[in-house]
């Protein structure tokens, strides 16, 4: 091996001023931008978002795309297979399945979103108060949540539906009565993790009130986990509605819901399988879309878990 001699003339200093070296070349990314960048790469999740948007648009526009409405009986044309006239066919009372499917979509999405938002509001308030104040208050508030969640969710919902008059809002109330606990637990955990951060101390020493600290400093910093929980609450609420409607405890007739339509479809499965196919397909598609988006959000907000 020959030793090479290195002369000083082989090197030339790079002409950089100090200011130039301090320059940040890359664009600075915020928490949200970072999450969005990761979310965008997840093709499945983007597909889910598109499906949800399409379903939402169709739930509003769908009923107007056909001349039939969801409640009018037409016994002469009962049990018609899908055709140019009735795109998804008709059910055993001659009601147009296309109109009913989208009416059902409206109800499912409305219940899913409303239940999720109510859960969000109660859960965030309950969880952040409990986690922030801590001590005795925390103990009592979490015990109440524990006892409530010791009741099997569907059992409580069914019992309430027996007692209260049937209707959309009863359904939502029954679902939210124990539904918020999961959100409250997650928020409490986040608050306990965040409340010892320095910015909270800084806000406190500047004299910010507890409400302000929770609302302005803590909640924005835990929007990620909240959003993920919210997205995953929607499919479970949609499922519960369908489950109850299937048992005959959901929305009253003539309102269409995917649960009642599935239940009707099951009764005539032998002869008219298409009557089961449409509601079953769309309910599965909706739940799939929300689950995929929820998973995508979780991966986007929590890159540690990303595989």
């Amino acid at each position: 091996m020959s030793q090479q001699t290195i002369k000083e003339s082989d090197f030339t200093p790079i002409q950089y001023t100090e200011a130039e070296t301090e320059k940040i070349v890359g664009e600075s990314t915020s928490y949200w931008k970072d999450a969005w960048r990761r979310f965008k790469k997840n093709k499945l999740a983007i597909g889910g978002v598109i499906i949800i948007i399409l379903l939402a648009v169709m739930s509003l526009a769908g009923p107007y795309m056909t001349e039939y409405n969801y409640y009018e009986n037409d016994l002469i044309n009962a049990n018609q297979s899908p055709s140019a006239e009735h795109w998804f066919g008709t059910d055993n009372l001659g009601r147009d399945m296309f109109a009913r499917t989208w009416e059902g979509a409206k109800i499912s999405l409305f219940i899913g979103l409303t239940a999720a938002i109510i859960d969000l509001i109660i859960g965030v308030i309950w969880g952040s108060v409990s986690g922030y104040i801590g001590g005795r208050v925390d103990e009592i508030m979490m015990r109440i949540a524990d006892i409530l969640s010791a009741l099997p969710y569907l059992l409580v919902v069914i019992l309430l539906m027996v007692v209260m008059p049937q209707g959309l809002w009863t359904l939502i109330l029954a679902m939210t009565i124990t539904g918020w606990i999961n959100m409250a637990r997650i928020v409490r955990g986040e608050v306990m993790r965040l409340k010892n951060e320095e910015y909270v101390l800084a806000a406190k020493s500047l004299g910010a009130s507890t409400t302000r600290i929770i609302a302005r400093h803590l909640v924005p910093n835990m929007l990620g986990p909240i959003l993920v929980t919210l997205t995953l609450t929607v499919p479970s609420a949609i499922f519960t509605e369908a489950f109850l409607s299937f048992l005959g405890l959901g929305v009253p007739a003539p309102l269409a819901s995917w649960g009642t339509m599935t239940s009707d479809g099951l009764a005539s499965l032998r002869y008219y399988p298409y009557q089961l196919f449409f509601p079953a397909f769309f309910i599965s598609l909706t739940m799939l879309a929300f689950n995929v988006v929820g998973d995508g959000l979780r991966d986007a907000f929590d890159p540690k878990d990303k595989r």
Partner: protein
Amino acid sequence: MLRYLLKRIGYILLSLYFIVTITFILMKVAPGGPFASERRLPPKLEEQMNAAYGLNDPIHVQYFDYLLRVVKWDFGPSFKYVGQSVNDIINRSFPYSAILGLESILLALSVGIFLGVVAALYHNRFPDYTAMVIAVLGISVPSFVLAAVLQYVFAFKLQLLPIAKFDSFAHSILPAVALAATPLAFIARLMRSSMLEVLNSDYIKTAKAKGLSQRVTIYRHGIRNAILPVISYMGPLVVAILTGSFIIETIFAIPGIGREFVTSVTNRDYTVIMGTTVFYSVLFLFSILIVDIIYSLVDPRIKLTEKEGDR
């Protein structure tokens, strides 16, 4: 350990007390009395019936009577089926549900763990994608839809399996699959992510480095550690199976307790509703306790005295 157990049982009793009280109140405010049917009873007869069932007593007397009877595990007579007590109904129907439930739990655990392990071992390859597609579908397709599809394909079109009722093992296959699908999917996902984590850990590298075979590394060191989250999912699993049975037993016409509950709800048979609710709650609360105890036995790092809810 003993102190912890006593404390837990104390909480269970407290929860049960609340459940009994809430169901009692709910059933009292529920519209329509037990004898309100299309055919009105003569007022005198109704009076007599009410007296016989103690419905004329002041409300607090009825409440304490009911509490006392629940403590003695006696839920009184059914209002709809003459001559049958709620205890009879529970005793008769529970064995069916227990068989179906155990079958589903076994199915969900074995297939779920298997899928999860395979997915983790073949991470980002074909078996992984297949397993995860099955898992996402299992979570997204509601159990009653799956039940309907299974009935249509296997019982009606292919005529391989009986369409309903519960007389033999063959009868239990379709309902067990429908009931197990959603928890199975959850278990597969849990198992996959925890297995991936374990496979990346140092002790797996050590095991490989000291020349242990692939089989021993995976079974002895991998699965044993990765299975912990699945065990903590056992509680929710029991709940999912119990509540899922409401609909599956109804669809497959299985005379189990889930269907009795649904029937009693549609019949407004209040004593049966109350009895089955209490029964379900006891079952549910104690199975969660048992799961927690198993968890501490499996993983010696977990002490039962640890404060709950810190995660």
